């Protein structure tokens, strides 16, 4: 590693990373060997330990994206813009994971990978596409402030989807294939509940770890752009001075 390399890690992130690794190990042991199988779903129920935490962290990421977006629009604070960007990027990963694990879980339990008639499934897919759109807007380039503003508007609109997704199984209680909330309305066996909580905690630690790193990368990218611009201006001024001096001497 070169002497001038900039790192995004710190003592805190290293501790967090270690805690995530230990947590994942504990989750695997509890999920596969500790928690009992379900009377109906048998071993397929173990998907709950990944699917539900992923969905929970998707919502969390969207809330942070919405707050960051609103603060950018209000205060024009670059700090909040980077927060919104980081949360949206991590949110798209968790949202994708939610859709993927839900689909795998659906095959043995619902007898289908996907159902276009189910409101929760379709609204979650819409959320995923909106997040991808938000990130596409950011990578499209252009004036930095304008890009941030457009992404903030899409981020806020995407967040509107969160309560619809979350409440869909209540609002359409007899109109959805997806079961109601396992945590608030469900009947979870003690060790199943404990393992699920462990899953949420581990995913939350990973979320924090990823947020810190992604934020620091965003902040460094911003500084780099500013340095590049400053360097280009200095070089251009130097060139102009040289040309001007040459014309005078002739």
């Amino acid at each position, binding site marked *: 590693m070169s002497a001038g390399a900039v790192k995004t890690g710190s003592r805190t992130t290293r501790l967090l990373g270690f805690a995530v690794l230990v947590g994942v190990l504990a989750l695997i042991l509890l999920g596969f060997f500790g928690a009992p199988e379900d*009377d109906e779903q048998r071993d397929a129920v173990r998907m709950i330990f990944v699917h539900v935490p992923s969905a929970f962290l998707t919502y969390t990421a969207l809330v942070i994206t919405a707050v960051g977006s609103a603060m950018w629009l209000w205060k024009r604070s670059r700090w909040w813009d980077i927060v919104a960007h980081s949360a949206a990027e991590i949110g798209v990963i968790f949202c994708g994971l939610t859709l993927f694990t839900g689909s795998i879980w659906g095959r043995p339990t619902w*007898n289908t990978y996907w159902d276009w008639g189910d409101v929760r499934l379709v609204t979650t897919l819409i959320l995923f596409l909106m997040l991808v759109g938000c990130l596409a807007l950011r990578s499209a380039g252009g004036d930095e402030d304008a890009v941030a503003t457009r992404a903030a508007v899409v981020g806020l609109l995407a967040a509107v989807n969160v309560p619809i997704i979350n409440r869909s199984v209540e609002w359409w209680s*007899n109109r959805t294939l997806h079961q109601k*909330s396992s945590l608030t309305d469900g009947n979870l*066996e003690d060790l199943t509940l404990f393992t699920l909580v462990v899953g949420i905690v581990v995913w939350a630690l990973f979320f924090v770890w990823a947020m810190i790193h992604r934020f620091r990368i965003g902040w460094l990218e911003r500084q780099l752009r500013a340095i590049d611009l400053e360097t280009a201006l200095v070089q251009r001024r130097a060139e102009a001075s040289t040309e001007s001096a040459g014309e005078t001497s002739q």
Partner: protein
Amino acid sequence: MTGELTPRPPRPMRARKAPWVAGVVVLAVAAAVAALIVNLVEGSLYFYNADEAVEERADIGDRRFTLQGAPIGCSIVEGFSGDEPVVAFSLSFGGAAVDVVHHGDPAELFQADVPVVLDGAWVEQPPPVEGFAGIADDGWHFSSDRMRVKHDNDYINDDEYAERSALSDAGADSTGVVCEA
């Protein structure tokens, strides 16, 4: 070349938008979201519950639709419709029963009392499956070719389930339909 560095005259300031414009935009977005929610809540019809499907049978006619209900344990029969293997059963919801003939393999978790969501159509004919006496027995059956299981959010192990089943078996079927001995 040096002209490129000459400061350009500032662009004229754009007229500041009136605060009411922002208010109108916020109201428009809020109205759109509200309309979306209302439309989704009122307009979404994923499946007919068994009682609704029976009530609206005349309107539905022979078009394909999706039906939901819980299979009644004592009615499930594996048999043949002609040469084709089928699963025949009655399901119920909201106090109404529907006789079903499902073509193809049933879902892995298909079992009594666990609701299913079926794609198919009404057929004005008693179920053509030998040995199947439908509980609805109204001269109609629902012919389905796609089955999904709508399981609940109770995750319990076998021991607890056995206790619960024993209590349930002592009384009527949980769908509300009492199976004859």
